[in-house]
């Protein structure tokens, strides 16, 4: 113990304490503060990033689900649209067909009507003509018959006979 105390150098103790305090203050300002600060900052950043990744993953999952829903909806809509379009087209075709039929019928009817009318007119005309011809023929015949007095008399007799018979 005596030897230990004898070896104890107060000067060394003094310098060492001074140097250690100096080192402590210097390192605190220039080393430990920035190092621990950087390490802390990095740890926070890492945990933040992990949280963010987890959150993003969840968001992605919901987004995916949403996308699927959207896709389903879109598909359904497309199907219904195609169906609608088909129906409309069919309807239009049907309508057009119906219209065309109607029109054709109309045309036919009017054609038939006009044919009938023409026919009737032609018949009437014919009748008139035939009557005219008949009268002309009768006139001519009558004239020939009446050219001789006996003939006139015979005719008158005949007519009178006819009338009498009536």
């Amino acid at each position, binding site marked *: 113990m005596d030897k*230990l105390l*004898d*070896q*104890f*150098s*107060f*000067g*060394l*103790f*003094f*310098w*060492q*304490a001074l*140097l*250690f305090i*100096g*080192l*402590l203050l*210097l*390192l*605190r300002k*220039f*080393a*430990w*503060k*920035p*190092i*621990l600060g*950087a*390490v802390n*900052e*990095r740890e926070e*950043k890492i945990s933040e990033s992990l949280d963010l990744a987890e959150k993003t993953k969840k968001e992605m999952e919901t987004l995916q689900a949403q996308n699927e829903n959207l896709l389903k909806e879109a598909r359904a809509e497309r199907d219904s649209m195609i169906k609608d379009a088909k129906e409309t087209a069919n309807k239009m075709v049907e309508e057009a067909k119906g219209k065309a039929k109607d029109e054709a019928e109309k045309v036919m009817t009017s054609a038939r009507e006009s044919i009938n009318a023409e026919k009737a007119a032609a018949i009437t005309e014919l009748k008139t003509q035939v009557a005219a011809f008949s009268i002309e023929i009768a006139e001519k015949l009558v004239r020939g018959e009446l050219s001789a007095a006996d003939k006139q008399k015979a005719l008158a007799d005949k007519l009178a006979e006819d009338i009498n018979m009536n």
Partner: protein
Amino acid sequence: MNKFWKVLVVAVALIPAVTFAGHHEGEAPKKELTKEEARTKNTEYVKHHTLDSHDFGLFTNEETGSHIGFPLPVILWEDGLHVFMSSSFHPEEGNEHGVAESNGKYFMIGHHDGQVYSCDEHGNILEDVSEDAEGNEVVSEIQPLDFSITKNVFSTILICLLLFFVFRSVAKSYASGLAPTGAAKFFEPIVLFIRDEIAIPNIGNDYKKYMNYLLTVFFFIWFLNLAGMTPLGINVTGNIAVTAGLAIFTFLITNLSAKKDYWMHIFWMPGVPIPMKIMLIPIELVGLVVKPFALMIRLYANMLAGHIVLGSLIAVVVYFDSYLAKGAFVGLTFFMNIIELLVAALQAYIFTMLTALYFGSAAAEHAHEEAH
């Protein structure tokens, strides 16, 4: 960082590596030593290398008895300030004892312990005669107050500079990005280890305010221990004054930052009967001092023992004549060196760990209801 290394290399290159004659001058240069003499010499040699010194010795030439190294400033207080270079202590023509003169006072190095003594101009150490309590005459040699930049102080300054530049560069490397680069890759895990394995488990939530001290003390001890592993013969942490300084800091910080619970545990231990409470007070008070004292002794003894063991093993290598034995002891020395490398880190860890433990007991604020 590169600039620092350049400066360091230039500084080391420019250090005046003067050759100076040592105490052995005058002895017959080439004398065959007997086994007994060789043993004594080796013992002295090993002991000498664990002591502080006023010179920074690098190399000793046994044959000419000359030492190569560089002098360091000597700062003494004896009725005034005396500052001179330690080269003044070197014996030379007309000054065989190595007496240094400063402002009318004479000083010399005591051969047995390497410390500075006051003396007269002929190299006779001045003595102070006093009476002890029983009336006996006590003769003590007069020593001035020695604030010299000794080898240990000089080494500590170098290590402090190294620590400062290394860790400043580590801190700066984070400016370019949060991922560690360069030296930070190596030191960051250690810093994190001290935070996560030493500070947080032992101190708890209050660990942040103690981090500066824990980190500084760990790297200070570790770097100085490693400096002791170099062939320069630096033995800073194996010096009781250095470990005492560190232990006193731990003691002061523990007690100055202690909360109510800490003092409760010392002066009125909760959970035990009142007679026990009273009995525990002196025990706890002794414990208060014993804890840092143990810190001081543990580091000092471990590092000193390591140096002595290594020094002895190297001496043994020289001592044996058989090359087989020499080779075996070189191997053993190598093995011990590896162990010492481990011990260097281990002792720094233990000191930091126990310091954190004491801080933890000071900072603890647990609500214990008479249950312990």
